[in-house]
């Protein structure tokens, strides 16, 4: 958490709680992500890191605390000290600015790569098709798939699919990108191509929150690292610090298993 003084945070979480029935997944998450920051969240499975990420674009509802993206409360409107649930439409509008990349890519299988990239800008934002097509093609070029625009997802490798998924999220011109274990479903030799694209994106100044098991990526690209366990942030700070010199026992135990 870079305590960037004077800069309004892109994401701010205050005591975020969430339950699945009686099970408390998130037990009070506090964090801030500054604009242009790349934050990596690591931790054992079941620690709540993916759940927290999904709360940021309101795919999951939070049950306690507050969560802001770019100064706007996520999923709720506050008037006085009363909270009002947002309508689906308002939630959808909030999500226009937040890109998300999933572990299992979730490309639309009945659409070609370029149709996947163009779908949301045209339908959800109502942009002109021609303009979007140029932008989509440029993005496919950028992720190294300029010549695969007419391929269906099933004709692409996992790494290629994930790169299309990144291009799809970027085509919405988001302020913030969320990555939910983007390389976990990939064959080992395909991980690099996706990480390269993400590195490029980080260099271009995108604000990114990355839930990952790629410690190398966290160390080299991340500005900050958060270690979560059991629904809580156990340790946070500069990734090089945390990874080489963890302070907390649980962090040490986790890192000894994955490094």
């Amino acid at each position: 958490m870079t305590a960037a003084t004077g800069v309004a945070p892109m994401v701010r979480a205050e005591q975020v709680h969430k339950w699945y029935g009686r099970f408390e997944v998130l037990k009070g998450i506090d964090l801030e992500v500054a604009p242009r920051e790349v934050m990596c969240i690591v931790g054992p499975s079941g620690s709540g890191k993916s759940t927290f990420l999904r709360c940021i674009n309101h795919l999951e509802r939070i049950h306690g605390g507050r969560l802001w993206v770019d100064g706007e409360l996520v999923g709720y409107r506050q008037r006085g000290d009363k909270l009002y649930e947002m309508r689906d439409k308002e939630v959808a509008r909030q999500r226009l600015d937040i890109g998300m990349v999933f572990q299992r890519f979730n490309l639309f299988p009945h659409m070609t790569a370029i149709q996947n990239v163009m779908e949301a800008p045209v339908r959800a934002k109502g942009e002109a098709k021609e303009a979007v097509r140029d932008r989509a093609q440029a993005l496919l070029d950028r992720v190294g798939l300029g010549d695969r625009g007419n391929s269906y997802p099933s004709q692409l490798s996992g790494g290629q699919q994930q790169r299309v998924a990144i291009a799809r999220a970027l085509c919405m011109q988001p302020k913030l990108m969320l990555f939910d274990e983007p390389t976990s479903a990939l064959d080992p030799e395909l991980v690099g191509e996706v990480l390269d694209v993400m590195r490029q994106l980080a260099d271009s100044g995108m604000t990114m929150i990355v839930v990952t098991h790629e410690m190398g990526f966290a160390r080299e690209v991340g500005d900050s690292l958060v270690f979560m366990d059991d629904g809580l942030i156990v340790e946070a700070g500069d990734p090089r610090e945390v990874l080489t010199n963890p302070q907390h026992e649980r962090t040490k135990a986790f890192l000894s298993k994955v490094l």
Partner: protein
Amino acid sequence: MSAAGPEAPARTQPPEPIKAIPVRHPGRWVTMAVIAVLAAMAVNSLVTNPNWQWSFQWENAFAPPVLRGVVTTLWLTAASMILGVALGVVLAVMRLSPNPILSGAAWFYVWVFRGTPVLVQLVIWGNLNSLYRQISLGVPFGPEWFTFETRDLIPPVAAALLGLALNEAAYMSEIIRAGILSVDEGQGEAASALGMSRMQTLRRIVLPQAMRVVVPPTGNETISMLKTTSLVAYVPYVELFFQTSAIGSRTFQPFPMLITASLWYLAMTSVLMVGQYYIERYYARGSVRTLPPTPIQKLKMRFGWGEPA
């Protein structure tokens, strides 16, 4: 596997292709013989038994009333399927809605229309004017704004269409609901995360993928509908079956005319099956890497008429 020596041995020449004696299938020859004999017996009896009345059937199969009946059957099938599918989509979406009133109403609709015989439903629609002389639009127990004679509002054609379509919608809604549920949850999530609305997600992302699961049973329903249209005789409304039966009773030859009707239904079913094949192919795009060739493409390839796909 690298070789034992410091250098891998250079490949000199490819190994000889395997020449093996293929597995014999004597069972296939036996079954072929048995089936050929049975088929010959069947054909023989069809041709030689005069009771089939082929020439009588041939004379009447293309009589103008029968042809008109064929046309009616076809459009009635198409129209009630289109209405049934459209209403079925609405019902399926209602049923899956988080709104308990909507899903409850959809459940109730399916319960009633799927749970009662379509024959009864057709009779009720056809005879609604004996249940209600007039149909009025207004406030319940309050003033009425418009009043119609039921007979004018629901002529037999409308009764036939209503009966078939409303019944079909109940079945279609369950088929479509199954299709929607078959689509991976991640698809809806991805669309939501991109800021697409619930309706956009449904129309652009979920339904097109549901179609793969929906099309085969819908083909089934269409073929079933083709023959269910014969029940609209109870409305009463005139279509193929009505016409062939009329000829059958007028000429005291009801049985051959039943066969004539069946052959017409069989012919129409065959055409529908071809249509279904191509619709399934269309919705398979993206879910299989390369589409298998169509029968026509296969023929072309076998005889070298076109370039291989």
